[in-house]
């Protein structure tokens, strides 16, 4: 199982789109830095299979003023949660 991390905005790069091509059951997605813009209601999270857990780093969400704009299915986590996600998955793959 892979934890896919995406740190770029879906509006400016294809990092998230590339990542989404290769998601399999059991994988999860973690959005951080500008990647959290994908978690906003205006972002392309509708493209993410509903069975794929999507997480967003709280510090990045809050810094960007996105907490009121998040899609309900995205789970906000702190860095301790990021570490737990890493231990729960076999491999971590960054898309940048």
């Amino acid at each position, binding site marked *: 199982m892979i934890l896919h*991390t995406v*740190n*770029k905005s879906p509006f400016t790069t294809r990092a998230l789109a590339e990542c989404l091509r290769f998601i399999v059951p059991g994988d999860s997605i973690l959005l*951080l*830095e*500008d990647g959290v813009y994908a978690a906003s209601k205006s972002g392309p999270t509708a493209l993410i299979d509903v069975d794929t857990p999507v997480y967003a*780093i709280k*510090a*990045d969400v809050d810094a960007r003023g996105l907490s009121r704009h998040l899609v309900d299915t995205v789970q906000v986590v*702190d*860095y*301790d949660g*990021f*570490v*737990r996600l*890493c*231990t729960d998955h076999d*491999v*971590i*793959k*960054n*898309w*940048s």
Partner: protein
Amino acid sequence: MKFAIVVHGAPYASGSSWSALHFARAVIRSGHEIYRVFFYHDAVYTASALMAPPQDELDVHGQWVDLSKQHTVELVVCIASSLRRGMLDETEADRYEKPGHNLDDAFVISGLGQLIDAGLNADRLVTFGA
């Protein structure tokens, strides 16, 4: 678990160094071990001892140095990336007859073998892309 952390982005051009730092602290806080932090590509700029940010701004370099000293975390910068970008310790500065050196003592210049070794010997390798 043992974590290898790989940083690709320059300290202020990218969020990667700051994210990696927060992650590193969380690894330690969670009771895990950091096997090595490897700075590659433009991330080698993080090692500059000459950074002097305003006091009310992020001190990326200073925070990495503090983490390294408080928790004995190995911070490695890739030698090839470092030489290209003018990040030199005293040995390399002498070797290449440069007018100064700028690598903070908390960082070690080494080869890509350290990156591969980290991948092979840590339980998890986490990359923070540029």
